[in-house]
């Protein structure tokens, strides 16, 4: 085990703190999620560390509960998009021919519509619940993962060891999961860090526009929306979730970079 570089360490600490707060929210949060505990927009004090929000709920508690929702939805959507996108991408690369054509053209079609617009259209006709949100985000995002994993896998399928596996008579499952996946992991992990952050931004955007997580549940985008009027009066409540999103984005990517560096030098695997 080599020494962890400083950047990765900072990233690890911040990422760990955010994820820890999200997981242990019920024990950490000083007040309930929707509990009204004071006047609206109280300043920072010893009882309310980050002040209160537009209707007098404790902002720190809202941030912690909101972080839980945001991180959970983003992580689930990312996981879904990666499983779906990479399996389909690898299949397209391995099978080629009409399977590849159908999958690739469908993805092109989906990508030609901006994902925010398609999400808004779909969510406006569907009941907005967490599973629906995760499903919509995951499927829309899987198109990007499909593109990447197909490109990576096309390079790998022409290697002699994949041909050797084919000549042996191996099925598609073995070729995808045992021959290609281990060699495609490095770029996918790096992309996963990036995609997770896009998912955080996406769910925050949706909530801000009112089609994401529904009140009284908290999430970071929703908190910005609820407190945006405060900015006019010089109240920073809306900026705190923005700050959280930014620091989470940077720290997750620092960690992903570090993982990428470590895995690509390992066991003589391919770089990039």
């Amino acid at each position, binding site marked *: 085990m080599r020494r962890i570089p400083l950047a990765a360490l900072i990233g690890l600490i911040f990422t760990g703190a955010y994820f820890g707060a999200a997981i242990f929210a019920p024990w950490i949060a000083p007040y309930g999620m929707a509990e009204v505990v004071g006047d609206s927009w109280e300043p920072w004090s010893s009882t309310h560390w980050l002040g209160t929000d537009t209707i007098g709920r404790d902002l720190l508690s809202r941030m912690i509960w909101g972080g839980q929702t945001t991180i959970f939805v983003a992580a689930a959507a990312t996981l879904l998009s990666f499983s779906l996108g990479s399996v389909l991408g690898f299949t397209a690369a391995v099978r080629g021919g009409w399977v590849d054509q159908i999958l690739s053209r469908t993805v092109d079609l989906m990508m030609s519509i901006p994902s925010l617009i398609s999400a808004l259209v779909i969510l406006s006709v569907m009941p907005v619940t967490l599973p629906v949100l995760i499903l919509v985000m995951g499927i829309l995002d899987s198109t990007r993962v499909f593109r990447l994993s197909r490109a990576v896998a096309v390079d790998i399928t022409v*290697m*002699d*060891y994949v*041909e*050797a596996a*084919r*000549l*042996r*008579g*191996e099925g598609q499952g073995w070729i995808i999961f*045992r*021959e290609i996946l*281990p*060699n495609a992991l490095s770029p996918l992990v790096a992309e996963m860090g990036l995609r997770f952050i896009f998912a955080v931004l996406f769910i925050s955007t949706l909530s801000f526009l009112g089609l994401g997580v529904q009140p009284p549940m908290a999430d970071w985008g929703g908190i910005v929306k609820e407190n945006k009027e405060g900015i006019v009066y010089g109240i920073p409540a809306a900026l705190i979730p923005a700050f959280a999103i930014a620091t989470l984005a940077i720290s997750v990517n620092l960690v992903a970079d570090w993982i990428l560096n470590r895995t690509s*030098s*390992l*066991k*003589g*695997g*391919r770089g990039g």
Partner: protein
Amino acid sequence: MADVLLDIRNLRIEATSYPPGEPPRDVVLVDDVSVAVEKGRVLGLIGESGAGKSTIGLSAMSYGRGGVRLTGGQILLNGREIRTAGMRELRSLRGHEVTYVAQSAAAAFNPAKQLMEQVIETSLSHGLMPRAEAEARAVDLFRQLGLPDPENIGKRYPHQVSGGQLQRVMTAMALCPKPDLVIFDEPTTALDVTTQIDVLAAIKRAIHETGVAALYITHDLAVVAQVADDIMVLRHGKMVEYGTTEQIITRPSEEYTRALVSVRGIEHAEKDPSVEPVLRVQNVTARYKGTNFDVLKNVSVDLPPGQTLAIVGESGSGKSTLARAITGLLPPSQGRITFAGRELSRELKARSKDDLREVQMIYQMADVAMNPRQTVGTIIGRPLEFYFGMSGEQKRVRIQELLDQIEMGRGFIDRYPAELSGGQKQRVCIARALAAKPKLIICDEVTSALDPLVADGILKLLLNLQAAEGVAYLFITHDIATVRAIADRIAVMFKGQVVRYGPKSQVLAPPFDDYTDLLLSSVPEMELGWLEQVLEHRKMESAGN
């Protein structure tokens, strides 16, 4: 010693290695090597890969590739110390006093620029001559090197000339700034034998006519014997032997040099050809999808069990395509392939598990033939699991047996391919093929990427395994020496057709057809003056026609 141009004394070259999971450490690549090249002479540097020959070659322009550092000794060029020289001085010397010809011309040229621009680039950037003069000189050099249409070839782009021509253009590029010393780094290794001989002759003539000194780096002693005046044999970064070409070839004093000179000493008695064949290829014609050009035309060959059929030809002759047709990767458009008495279906998918098991393949590049993320145990064990349903202890015992058969220790089972040497990788690939208990193994240029001594070991191993297991080999190669060593019968391929076919003793005995004659006579022999003899002979023949 007034005429000494390059004088390297006690050179020491180091680099830092980063073994996985261990702290970095310094390794010595070249230790205490001294070389002197006089004006107008050619020194051959010879050795296996990793012997440090390219590293020493590049040190003649005080350059270390990657993290390589020239840490000790002196490099005197024209009496001037250049090892410790500054960047500015080195820049004026590289591409002017010393130039370099790389192995892969295709990778060394910029595909987006015309050849002429690239040939005269250094002459112009060093301010050595005006453009018109440089272009005139380049055309002269093109003519000297025997390039077709020397006035206009400079207007072409790199993809518009052949590999052999490109290598000659690169030689012209190196000679254009009138250097004192040219470093040739394996200039003909990537070429077919029939092309190699022309390039070799052109380089030799150009060296002679321009009176330039040269370092000629290669792993092929027979090639270097044709061009060099002196030869230095290197191994593991140390000098083994240094002498005139004549002395090294005829009276080598070191054990290692003797091994290099007498390499391919394998004798192999031809087996009885009148046995019922295990593989029968009949009138096979094939083309790649979306093209209307037949890569294989009406090919018919037979291979008796336990024997070796060598397919010989230059690149593009269709020999690897034949292997793809037999394995089912490229379904032939016509013809039939019969294996062990039953007809093989054309498509890979339609073949039974036994059909797949009994035909195995070994590739040229062992590096990419093994998944870098699987251990040797997984790589060899998978066919056992897949075809014979072995697992646990039974599988482990069988893997050990196979490792013993390929003469590798038991400690290798948990290693990754990156932790093996080139020869070991190829052995693991052989073990993977053997694990399936095949009747036929297709060997696609399996020794071409290996050093001669290592390749020899692999060939001996293959012959032993054939004797022990009775497996037949379809051996694809461009190397006649390998064919002589192991084949029972030979098919010579040219432009997708079999032009000559039969038992080894017949195919390699006169009278020859034109192509086989050209192919056989182009293989360098370890003999002084061989190149001149061949060229003289060819000139007489063409004059006679």
